[in-house]
């Protein structure tokens, strides 16, 4: 009898257990997927003393062909929709999307965030605070700056990808992995840089190459779009405000200074003694920069040691690669090019007086006593202006590719 009762109890438990599952629906926080507007990107502008926020929501009914990816749905329907809202605070603006959208905004899958220059000039602290505080805001979004209206960037359709936010993410990841003009910057990295001893940060620019905005699905059916999204210069922020721009070349030099090169292409003159003609290409595969601050009399000298190696990919002159002297000559030429980049970049950074080089962090780590004094005197800006850099570059051509002689030298024979 007891055994029978035991089995009945077990059976009852088994029957009741699925009922408990109804309690596991997220309590008061349940959200239906069909009621969510999944944001893939956001943009923020400052207009008429108000925040103007633009959100890009993935359109689940889109089946737009010609942009990569599959899927059914209506091909005339765009792959994403944008909503622009205004508010005195960013949250007020976000909440106002509910006045126009049938779906509740869900930002956990957002990939990018574009700041208008107006926001960057005004100050980014409030925006960073929102990203760090709001539960469904992701501080891993990639941050960009747009000159003019940032919201318009989100309207542009992309080829080869339906999801523009994810597409821009791929662009910047690819750039920092293969080109290294500047590193990708995520929201938490921006916050880290601004809260560090340096108090300065950089953000890459995103722009439209043409004047038109390709925001109709039919327009992406062309092979060569008149207007595309592209990465441009590098914005420099000091404190919370933008103070200026660095050109791509200056940004490239800064990437060397901050040791963030992952891979880079360097074009150089193969015969620098005889001609300034840029006719060689070299892929830098490994690069590391070490910084050593030295206090001399009344200022710091920053000893910058750049070491790198890679492979030769293109030669446009007569060259015998079995000859060590010609390789050394090319190495010297590449080193001089990198030196010029670094010097150029340092001058630009000094002019902006924003320590995006991270020298303050380096000095704090290696000379903490003097750093404490600098901090106490609040004299970092002056100390930074007086820093002198001494760059040393050592580049090694490790491999020559699949040919030992340049094609031009064979042709001349």
């Amino acid at each position, binding site marked *: 009898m007891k055994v029978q009762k035991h089995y009945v109890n077990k059976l009852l438990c088994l029957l009741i257990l699925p009922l408990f599952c109804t309690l596991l629906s997220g309590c008061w926080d349940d959200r239906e997927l069909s009621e969510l507007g999944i944001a893939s990107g956001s943009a923020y502008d400052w207009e008429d003393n108000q925040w103007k926020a633009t959100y890009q929501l993935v359109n689940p009914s889109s089946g737009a062909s010609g942009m990569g990816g599959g899927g059914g749905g209506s091909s005339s329907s765009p792959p994403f929709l944008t909503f622009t809202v205004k508010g005195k605070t960013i949250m007020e603006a976000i909440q106002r999307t509910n006045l126009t959208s049938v779906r509740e905004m869900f930002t956990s899958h957002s990939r990018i965030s574009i700041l208008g220059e107006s926001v960057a000039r005004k100050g980014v602290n409030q925006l960073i605070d929102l990203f760090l505080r709001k*539960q469904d805001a992701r501080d891993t979004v990639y941050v960009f700056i747009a000159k003019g209206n940032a919201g318009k960037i989100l309207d542009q359709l992309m080829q080869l990808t339906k999801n523009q936010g994810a597409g821009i993410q791929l662009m910047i990841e690819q750039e920092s992995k293969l080109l290294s003009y500047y590193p990708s910057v995520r929201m938490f990295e921006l916050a880290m840089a601004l809260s*560090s001893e340096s108090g300065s940060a950089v953000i890459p620019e995103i722009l439209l190459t043409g004047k038109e905005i390709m925001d109709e699905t039919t327009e992406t059916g062309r092979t060569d779009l008149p207007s595309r999204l592209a990465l441009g210069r590098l914005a420099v922020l000091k404190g919370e405000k933008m103070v200026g721009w660095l050109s791509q070349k200056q940004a490239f030099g800064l990437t060397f200074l901050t040791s963030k090169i992952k891979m880079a292409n360097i074009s150089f003159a193969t015969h620098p003694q005889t001609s300034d003609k840029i006719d060689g290409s070299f892929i830098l595969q490994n690069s590391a920069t070490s910084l050593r601050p030295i206090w001399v009399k009344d200022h710091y000298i920053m000893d910058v040691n750049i070491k790198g190696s890679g492979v030769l990919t293109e030669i446009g002159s007569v060259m015998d690669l079995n000859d060590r002297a010609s390789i050394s000559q090319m190495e010297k030429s590449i080193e001089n090019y990198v030196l010029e980049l670094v010097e150029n970049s340092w001058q630009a950074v000094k002019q902006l007086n924003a320590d995006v080089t991270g020298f303050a962090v380096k000095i704090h780590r*290696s000379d903490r006593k003097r750093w404490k004094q600098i901090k106490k005197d609040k004299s970092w800006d002056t100390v930074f202006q007086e820093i002198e850099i001494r760059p040393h570059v050592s580049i090694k051509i490790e491999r020559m590719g699949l040919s030992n002689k340049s094609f031009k030298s064979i042709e001349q024979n």
Partner: protein
Amino acid sequence: MLVVTTILPTAIVVLPEIIGSYAEQDSPLAISLSTLIGFGIAALVGTIIRYNNGASFLDWIGARSSPLLATLLGLLLLQYYLDTSATILREFVNFVKDTVLLNTPITVMTTLILVVTIYMVRQGIECIARVNSLVILLFLFFIPLYLFGLAGEMNVHRLLPIFDHSLSTITLASLTPTSWMSEVAILLFLAPYLKSPQKARLIGYMGLIFVFLMMMFSMITTMMVFGPQYLKLTTYPGFSTVGIIQIGRFVENLDILFISYWVLAIYLKFSIFLFATVECFKQTFRVKSSRPFIGALGLVIAMECLFTWTDPAKLNMYNREGRFLVFMVFNVLLPLAVLLINGRRQAKSKRKGCET
């Protein structure tokens, strides 16, 4: 391993921000200092358990001194365990509300957590200990995933410069973690269930070493990812670190996975404290069976959680400043006084023995 779960779950969530705001990159030093003090407390508690040979703590005091003193101490300890359990429950609820269930009322969450925990405590300490071992084994899955996911984000230079802060700052930073380490004193109420009470000291040491290693691991990796300055900005630095893990293009937003694991651990922590509260109640009022009182004690804890700790700022302030004092009184001074009284009595009876 019960000692580990008694300390670690809330320590890993609450402490990094508190220690980091004082000691920044010197936080590992503050953790080391607090562990050393924790060893002292473990030695003290272990010695008491060795003396009473795993007997019920309050019964032993009653037998050695007077039942009245035992009841008084029991009442004080009961108050301490009720308060501590309420703060643990509130930390649990606050964290879940901050990160996952934003709209669910706190009362509903508190009730659900309490019902589950009461069920756990009713199953007994052996059941809790077995589940605890399984939960700790899950570290074998989570730690490699954590390290693999963050390998590209870590920079060892962010731990520099070491010894940048004065000894007084590091000592100040180590006060709050010390109060957590002092929770090893829960062994006083777990002692009757230990297989070998004589090894209580060793059990305490081992538990603290594990907690120390995990705290160091969490603190160092978080600092290597975010640096000491950013650490101060986030309320839950450990989970912010997990949030940036990205493996390939398909494994990301892993914080929810780690939060689920943490919830497993905090359920165990809360159940251990509720168990200790029930034990304390049982010994104070000399109740034979404590089962009918578990729900009632749980209700008291829930009430305190809901009405005393409504303001998160108040709880933070208590964790930062008040907790050390309270924990030192109940986890260090009280056992120390008991040990001294016992020592004196032993010496007296020895002297009497010699005289006769």
